[in-house]
């Protein structure tokens, strides 16, 4: 029965002499039966432990019962050729006429140990992958990404070194980031990366490079150094971006464990995730660029529009209104004279005067819409003027509220004192637009403007109790009655603020906030 057992069985006498070994045992230890019978059992034990073994053995015989040997210790056995292998041993005492024999069951656990180690390596690798993915989300630049990937791989396996190489200006490579000793490459000076052709081909062709024997495949200072340091394996993986290979991720290690399929697949995944992250950074940069361009374009459009308006407003004021006002006076003079000379003709002059007054009124309204806010007039005053102008001849009750709840230190008159003129210009334009909309469409009986300065900017709310816009205010765009909403939003966004329409308990509020900002020409 013991002969055919798959595990090794050795029987030892009370004095420690081998008197039985089964077939598996002979195979495992590399002896023939004749060579072992009669030998002390210590021949099967590695030298450092063999010395203490005789004492331990005698202790066991004195208190013999079935048990595992050296519980909690890592046991090893010794082959005939001197090599050792990890084992587990169970001991069973067998009483015989010649004293107590001990039957030792010996199991070679090197395969299990290797598997355990591999599981450990793999779980560390997967943990590292998870950690890398978390780091990637925080990265702001490609250099951040390269540093993270090196650090994460190095932390997971202390015996490897990791580096990222990127193309340099001279068709070579430079080390963008590294963790661990990478030999002459990391030392600066002449660029020895030129001497590692496989990396250049990874960069050019985007194929990964796996190397199990650096000495055989590569030559040059790095390979020489690797040979001296016992570094045999390397993996080089392309890090891609849409425009091509951006970098090469290199991992070097003293043994081929690095090249095991599972580990390599984790490394490849890491390189791919870094690639995706690079794409994300590129897209973000692209988006930011587009957004900046959009804001710039809007800014220039608004500035051009303001210039144009200012020019027209000046024309309307300086020429049209002044001339009409002069004609108005001269007509008045004419009327006085006609009243004296030919009273029956005064009606005609009066009719002319009414027509003239209408035209002047129209132009004055145009002036209200076009006029560039005077930087010398406070925002509160400009809002007050707009409110008085829009609702002058109405039965609409209007009021202005300056709220300094958030920061009582800002006085009412200071609500807008340090708003840059450009921001103030937008603030009053949006306000005028909102008031005109309310006047035209809301049929409101009360209109309130709340101005709330805060340390970063100013929030203005135009509140009315009118009919309000139809439809969902959140998605309202160019709906009738609020044609200007898009324009108001654009204005707010141009200076980095926001603008939205709210409807709550019968009140419609156009609320907008503009930052104080950093205007190159602060208000005087």
């Amino acid at each position, binding site marked *: 029965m013991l002969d055919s057992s798959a595990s090794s069985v050795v029987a030892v006498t009370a004095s420690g002499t081998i008197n039985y070994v089964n077939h598996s045992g002979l195979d495992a230890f590399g002896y023939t039966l004749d060579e072992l019978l009669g030998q002390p059992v210590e021949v099967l034990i590695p030298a450092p432990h063999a010395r203490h073994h005789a004492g331990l053995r005698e202790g066991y015989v004195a208190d013999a019962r079935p048990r595992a040997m050296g519980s909690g210790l890592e046991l090893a056995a010794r082959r005939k050729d001197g090599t050792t292998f990890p084992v587990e041993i169970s001991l069973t005492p067998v009483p015989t006429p010649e004293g107590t024999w001990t039957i030792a069951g010996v199991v070679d656990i090197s395969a299990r140990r290797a598997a355990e180690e591999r599981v450990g390596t793999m779980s560390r690798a997967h943990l590292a992958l998870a950690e890398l993915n978390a780091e990637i989300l925080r990265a702001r630049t490609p250099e951040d990404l390269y540093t993270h990937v090196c650090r994460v791989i190095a932390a997971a396996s202390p015996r490897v070194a990791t580096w990222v190489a990127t193309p340099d200006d001279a068709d070579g490579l430079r080390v963008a980031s590294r963790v661990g000793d990478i030999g002459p490459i990391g030392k600066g000076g002449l660029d020895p990366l030129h001497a590692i052709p496989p990396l250049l081909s990874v960069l050019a062709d985007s194929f990964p490079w796996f190397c199990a024997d650096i000495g055989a495949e590569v030559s040059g200072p790095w390979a020489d150094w690797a040979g001296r340091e016992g570094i045999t394996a390397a993996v080089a993986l392309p890090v891609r971006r849409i425009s091509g290979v951006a970098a090469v991720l290199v991992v070097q290690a003293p043994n081929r464990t690095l090249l095991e399929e599972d580990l390599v697949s984790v490394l490849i995944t890491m390189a791919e995730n870094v690639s995706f992250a690079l794409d994300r950074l590129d897209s973000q940069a692209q988006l930011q660029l587009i957004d900046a361009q959009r804001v710039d374009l809007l800014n220039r459009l608004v500035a051009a529009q303001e210039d144009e308006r200012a020019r027209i407003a000046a024309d309307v004021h300086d020429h049209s*209104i*002044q001339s009409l006002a002069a004609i108005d006076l001269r007509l*008045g003079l004419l009327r006085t004279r006609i009243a004296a000379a030919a009273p029956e003709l005064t009606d005609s002059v009066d009719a002319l*005067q009414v027509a003239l007054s209408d035209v*002047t009124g129209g132009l004055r309204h145009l002036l209200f819409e076009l006029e560039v806010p005077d930087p010398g007039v406070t925002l509160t005053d400009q809002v007050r003027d707009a409110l008085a102008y829009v609702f002058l001849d109405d039965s609409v009750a209007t009021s202005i509220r300056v709220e300094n709840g958030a920061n009582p230190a800002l006085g009412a008159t200071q609500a807008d004192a340090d708003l840059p003129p450009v921001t103030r210009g937008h603030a009053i334009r949006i306000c005028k637009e909102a008031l005109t909309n309310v006047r035209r469409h809301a049929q409101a009986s009360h209109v309130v403007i709340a101005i709330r300065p805060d340390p970063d900017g100013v929030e203005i709310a135009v509140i009315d109790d009118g009919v309000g816009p139809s439809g969902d205010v959140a998605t309202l765009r160019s709906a009738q009655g609020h044609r200007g909403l898009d324009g108001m939003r654009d204005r707010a966004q141009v200076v980095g603020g926001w603008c939205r329409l709210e409807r709550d308990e019968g009140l419609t509020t156009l609320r907008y906030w503009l930052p104080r900002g950093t205007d190159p020409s602060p208000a005087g």
Partner: protein
Amino acid sequence: MPQIRVAIGDDDRTFREAVSDVLTADPRFAVVAAVGSGPELREVVAALRPDVALVDIRMPGGGATAVRGLRADDRERAEAEGDAPDTPVVVIALSAHTGVSDVRDLLAAGATGYLAKGNLGAALPDLVHRCASGEVVLAVPSGAKALLMLAEQANREPARGDEVERTA
């Protein structure tokens, strides 16, 4: 009754001449000067001592600045003339701008009339005459709101003074 002597300050020549012609055509008035800026207006008022100064609010150095200047000149003169000072010049603002803050600022600076350009017709001489006789004339749609603002401001300020006294 002696003629009312008027100085006109407006940078628009067409309008300035129209005002001048209209007032000159009325025997109650004599136009003594017509200039195009605030500083010039102060000069001619100091030199010619008209009864009325018409001030455009958007001419260079015009508006509230010009009115405050005219009022300062008045005070200086009053001090120099001692017990029997000359009557101060009546200042009337004339403007195409009808914003409530413009009207408020001009009244606060010391104007006692505000006439909106473009809707005066034959009424200009009478309005100027009433101002010269001591009336306040606000022939501008936002006149009432401007006065209310000034009243509010005036009501707030004494209250603050009281508080200071109480805590003292």
